[in-house]
């Protein structure tokens, strides 16, 4: 990350386009995903890496377990409220440049599960570059999404991506706030003060159940 920024700032404007092409070509040809398989879409992601639909020929050679070595985070599966801060922390741990593919209907918008437990769309937590519909999407759709992401990467400029300053990253999820408490709220039989969140979706307003 650091080197290309230094070079880009040193070069005049017209020469950075050549640098851009080179760097973007390098980045798009080796997009290494971070393993973030959550639910059923993870199995289709595993199918996409298996021998029949081989994602490795597009550059995603290995799925890095550590987010610090990964380029793209493929959020595959439903994100529950307990998992959401973990997702954000893993995203913050990835170094720039990083992209996010939201795979499947649950990651894109909550999917089939419009209820208290699932975050309605992972773009409420992290910025998403490519959305894939489907429940679960076929492996070929994931490959198509990776190719779309590669097109997007080719159109970027090397000056767009800088490391987030550390304070901003820390502000997103304050360390130590993962929801592990002493559980005392379970013993109190209280409910939150606010009104229930019952904004009916459009198809439900038509008639009563």
């Amino acid at each position, binding site marked *: 990350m650091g080197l290309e920024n230094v070079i880009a700032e040193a070069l005049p404007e017209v020469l950075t386009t050549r640098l851009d092409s080179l760097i973007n070509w390098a980045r798009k040809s080796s997009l290494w995903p971070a393993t973030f398989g959550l639910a059923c879409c993870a199995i289709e992601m595993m199918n996409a890496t298996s021998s029949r639909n081989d994602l490795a020929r597009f550059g995603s050679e290995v799925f890095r377990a550590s987010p610090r070595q990964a380029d793209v985070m493929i959020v595959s599966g439903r994100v529950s409220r307990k998992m959401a801060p973990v997702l954000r922390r893993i995203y913050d741990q990835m170094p720039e440049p990083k992209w996010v593919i939201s795979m499947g209907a649950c990651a894109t918008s909550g999917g089939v599960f419009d209820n208290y*437990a699932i975050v309605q769309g992972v773009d409420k937590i992290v910025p998403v570059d490519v959305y894939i519909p489907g429940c679960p999407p076929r492996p070929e759709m994931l490959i198509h999404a990776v190719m779309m992401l590669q097109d997007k990467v080719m159109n970027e400029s090397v000056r767009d991506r800088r490391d987030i300053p550390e304070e901003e990253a820390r502000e997103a999820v304050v360390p130590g706030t993962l929801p592990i408490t*002493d559980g005392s709220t379970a013993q109190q039989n209280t409910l939150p003060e606010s009104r229930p*969140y019952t904004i009916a979706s459009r198809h439900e307003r038509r008639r009563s159940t």
Partner: protein
Amino acid sequence: MTPEETPSSDTAPSPSVTALQREHPEWVREVIIAFGETTIVVPRENIADACTFLKTSPETRFDFLADICGADRGVEEEPRFEVNYHLFSTTKYHRVRLKVLLNEEDTHVPTVTGIWKTANWHERETFDLFGVIFDGHPDLRRILLPDDWQGHALRKDFPLRGYEPYSLK
């Protein structure tokens, strides 16, 4: 692999009912036989004793606790909550359901963790989703919902979409 005793038919009472009714009739509040299954409603105080009896009695031998399942009958129902214990015998292959009915104000039930260790997580789940408190449980805390969640999600008065949309703050 033949069972030692064939499972009961629809009309004949299952051996668990006959054994319980013979030995401890005060523990059997009601017997329901429907859809090929036997349900015994047990008063809340006697559930642990009834389970121990059914586990050790040679006629019934329910050594496998398949499931503990809570249910909310409805906000205006009285009693409101029920806890179902599904028992299975690995030697005789028969099943029975024990039911405990609870009012809304007093949702305490003695734990059966000492009888089958698997009840540990089932009871935690019932506590988490319904608020039924199991007295004597070694580690009663939330298991599925986040630790700081307010309310019990599967109660009928808990709205489907929760109370507020998710935000990081």
